[in-house]
């Protein structure tokens, strides 16, 4: 039996020119990057232009409830006679406004908390313990308490999403830190006299950022589910404002009679997830490791 011949070695990699930003910009020109960017831009544009494209707003109730898709209502009408397509786009608008603000904030704070262990080990340990507590808190309960204390609405959801995301980002950052801080290049930099915070930002951070970007892309979608879960117990975005999660909740009850109610928000959610996934993939491929 002959051993399979190994594939010929790949062409030697060229180290790309330019700093980190240039690398990320180049990443966006890959096929994945382009698809992701276009998709996201389309979705964001739809969301921003919603008041222009559908000036009637999201609360035009009529007597024609739960109507099947037709020329006038492409996805049909909901239980109060409102156009589902309109509400889907406005729901996208609400959700984007939440996740595009809350998730990055959570990412930044969480990463700083996780990496703080490098600067000061006792502060880092303390932060890890705080993250332990937040993480251990039963998720929906934490959300319910935050919303009930602040009062249901956009602000409460913002805080709920930020706080709930901290442990994920913090733990990943710390995990990466533990791997990287013993590596030769770090020890070399310290020997050369570079101070700790510069090492942390300039050297460790870029190498730790891959799983963080992946987690961020995942968390964008999870954040929508957090809002959906809180909507089930009546603590989500205040009606009549729509949100994708709340629409999925209600639509699930009509999945056999009016499937377009679920398909609309579901498809938009899928496209969002796809866009964020492709984006984080593209950015990851760009980052050089050494």
């Amino acid at each position: 039996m002959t051993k399979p011949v190994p594939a010929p070695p790949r062409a030697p990699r060229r180290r790309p020119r330019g700093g980190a930003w240039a690398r990320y910009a180049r990443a966006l020109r890959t096929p994945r990057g382009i698809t992701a960017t276009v998709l996201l831009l389309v979705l964001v544009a739809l969301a921003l232009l919603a008041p222009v494209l559908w000036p009637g707003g999201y609360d035009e109730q009529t007597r024609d409830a739960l109507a099947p898709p037709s020329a006038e209502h492409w996805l049909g009408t909901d239980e109060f006679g409102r156009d589902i397509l309109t509400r889907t786009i406005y729901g996208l608008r609400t959700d984007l406004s939440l996740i595009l603000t809350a998730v990055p904030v959570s990412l930044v704070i969480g990463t700083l908390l996780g990496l703080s262990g490098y600067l000061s080990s006792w502060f880092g340990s303390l932060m890890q313990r705080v993250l332990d507590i937040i993480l251990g808190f039963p998720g929906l309960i934490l959300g319910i308490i935050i919303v009930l204390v602040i009062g249901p609405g956009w602000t409460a959801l913002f805080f709920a999403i930020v706080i709930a995301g901290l442990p994920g980002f913090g733990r990943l950052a710390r995990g990466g830190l533990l791997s990287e801080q013993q590596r030769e290049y770090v020890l070399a930099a310290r020997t050369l006299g570079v101070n700790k915070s510069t090492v942390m930002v300039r050297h460790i951070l870029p190498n730790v950022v891959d799983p963080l970007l992946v987690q961020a892309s995942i968390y964008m979608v999870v954040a929508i589910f957090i809002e959906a879960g809180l909507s089930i117990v009546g603590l989500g975005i205040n009606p009549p404002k729509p949100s994708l999660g709340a629409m999925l909740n209600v639509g699930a009850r009509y999945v056999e009679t009016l499937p377009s109610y679920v398909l609309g928000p579901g498809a938009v959610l899928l496209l969002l997830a796809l866009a964020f996934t492709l984006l984080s993939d593209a950015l990851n491929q760009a980052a050089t490791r050494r």
Partner: protein
Amino acid sequence: MIRYLIRRLPSIVLVLVATSVIAFLLPRLVPGDPAAAVAGPDASPQTIAAIRTQLGLDKPLINQYFHWIGGVFTGDLGQSLQFQRPVSELIGDRLGSTVQLALLAAIFLVIFGIGLGILAGSARSRWARTLVEGTNTGFLAAPPFLVGLLLILLFGVAIRILPTSGEVSVLDNPNFGFQYLLLPALALALPMSAGVARLVQTSMQAIRQEDFVDLAVAKGVPPWRINIRHILRNSLGPAVVAIGIRFGDLLAGAVVIEAIFARNGLGQLAVSGAQSNDYPVMQVLVVGAVFIAVVAQLLTEITLSALDPRVRLG
């Protein structure tokens, strides 16, 4: 490793004490009077006040806190305000159900998460990778309750092969118990496994570019062995962290899944407790959940150090 555990003990105790104070205070920050919920929808203010006294809620907070803590050491975890029963009894009734679901879901999570991740990370042909990634993204975008609902429609209504409502303990009847667990565990694990799979895949793709992989290829090591022994082992780190995080979710509240499949678990108890300001129940559940999360974190760090010798414990 024993030394590591002993070194961590003080911080664990610190976390538990801090958590007990937070678990005591935070629910009391939520506006509303639990006595009003107990009194019912048509009660007069006099009835509510009388019930408040009966439940011991007008004693000073410090007294209530130490009364609770003192009770914990003698095994009395407090008395639920809604049900007037010991919290330990309420939790004991539900613990088995939640643990069984969490364990099976965790097994599925590891299998599907790492399995899908390996498939995506090592797939050579583009269409295979696209297919796997497409499935993954699908799971990622699917809210847990929708997955549960679809599973109910498929296997409970369209093809009546699995039960979709209620539960039987695996300890009482392994066969039925497992059948009742199957759909809920899948509904719980599949969406979560997408996140884990993504982490594994990304790590594998990154590691694949390392020098030692080139060396192994040059040496003529077969591809699957490179994948498993070299790449996978080094890329499991973030996946282990993610699974550790998720395990806390699994145990402390697979709330939505329990609700859809009519399972009587801890998640339901926690939600009804939060909505009726049932302080004793919330206090115990929160401290318990944090404790479990801390243990899970310890296990994660130990596993990480076993996988990656560069990680030093502590």
